């Protein structure tokens, strides 16, 4: 007979909270850097030189067509043989930024393509330079229209960070594994971790939808 016992897992709540904390930190840092990277790459892809466009396209395709876990292993296990040694946390952040950067490039690009050309002409007639036009005129409405998709992608990356436990970054899934290796309550520990991820995903969605209009694409 199946007897589920959540008590021994819940007793480890300080460890779970700490793991959740690292998951939040990893997500927050990589969301800020990843979205920024995506915006820059999307601008290069839309308005940059032919050379820049090509590099961005290659980067986006390479990342979007390989699994996150392989990117993570490549950075954590592969790069040291080139002399780049990284801590698990730093490797996780880099992998998440690189991953989110590629996806958000595509998302932002869709927003830029949808902005009417008249906006550029109007801004030019006000003698704004290229950078000002992007920052003040074109990007805000573009970001506004793609923000829900961006929030979805940030949450996907947040959920993907569960894999970072595999290179011993001590985030939530790592802690869940640690707990069940101590008390053998594997199903219960995983269940609680999954529930925490679900709650976090809902919370992050609400938070980002609130933050977007206030800080990301202010008018």
């Amino acid at each position, binding site marked *: 007979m*199946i007897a589920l016992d959540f008590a021994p897992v819940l007793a480890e709540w300080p460890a779970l909270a700490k793991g959740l904390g690292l998951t939040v930190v990893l997500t927050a840092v990589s969301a800020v850097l990843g979205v920024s990277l995506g915006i820059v790459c999307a601008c290069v892809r839309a308005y940059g030189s032919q050379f820049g466009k090509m590099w961005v396209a290659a980067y986006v*395709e*390479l990342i*979007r*067509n*390989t*699994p*996150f*876990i*392989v*990117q993570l*292993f*490549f950075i954590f*296990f*592969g*790069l*040291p*043989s*080139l002399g780049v040694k990284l801590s698990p946390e730093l490797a996780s952040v880099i992998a998440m930024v690189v991953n989110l950067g590629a996806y958000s490039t595509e998302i932002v690009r869709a927003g830029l393509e949808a902005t009417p050309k008249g906006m550029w002409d109007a801004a030019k007639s006000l003698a704004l330079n290229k950078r000002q036009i992007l920052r003040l005129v074109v990007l805000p409405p573009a970001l506004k229209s793609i923000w829900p998709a961006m929030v979805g992608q940030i*949450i996907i990356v947040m*959920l*993907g*960070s*569960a*894999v970072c436990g*595999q290179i011993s970054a001590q985030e939530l*899934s790592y802690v*869940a594994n640690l707990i069940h290796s101590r008390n053998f309550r*594997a*199903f219960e520990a*995983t*269940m609680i*971790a*999954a529930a925490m*991820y*679900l709650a976090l*995903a*809902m919370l992050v969605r609400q938070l980002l939808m609130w933050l977007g209009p206030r800080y990301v694409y202010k008018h």
Partner: protein
Amino acid sequence: MVDFSLWDIFRNLLLAMRWTVVLSLIAFIRGGVFGLGLLVLRIGKYTWAQNAVKIYVQVFQGTPLLMQLFLAYFGLALLGLNVSAWASAALALTLYSSAFLTEIWRGCIEAVPKGQWEAGKSLALTFVQQLRLVIFPQALKIAVPPTVGFLVQVIKGTALASVIGFIELTKAGQMITNATFQPFTVYSCVAVLYFALCYPVSYFARGLERKLKAEH
């Protein structure tokens, strides 16, 4: 100590890639069939069934695939079934695919104008007939590009089956790394192989999307 040439590494990875392909196809096809069933419940007239599918989708889209794999692996064991990593991975990925495909297809069905349902009803078609004869053929056209695009997601998802010990491309990469101590080369090869698998599918999906856009 056995020396591994680049070709040895590549050949062994290529052999393991079979399992990535098989697992992807199984999860995608079974997920599609199961997802279709969920879709009918989701757009049907029973509110409780609609809500149940909504929750199902939210749970699978709101938790990491890795946790889902662990839950399938440990959960089936808890039920007293002595399951292999292969069976649990196939189960978890099937459920995962079904949740995403249901959600994708629901969007496509909702894109079909409401008048089409009403027209079907006015011809005294039953709910199933309306779906089969009127709505599905129209929704199918818009559903193909995102569905093919999701296949890429499934292929990448199978990489996580390595964590519960199923030997596919990523796990083979880990094992070969442990034998050769050449992580840079091995993981580069792994990435190249995934790319070779996923890029044509992405490219095909994008082509379909463009064609669809041009038609409208």
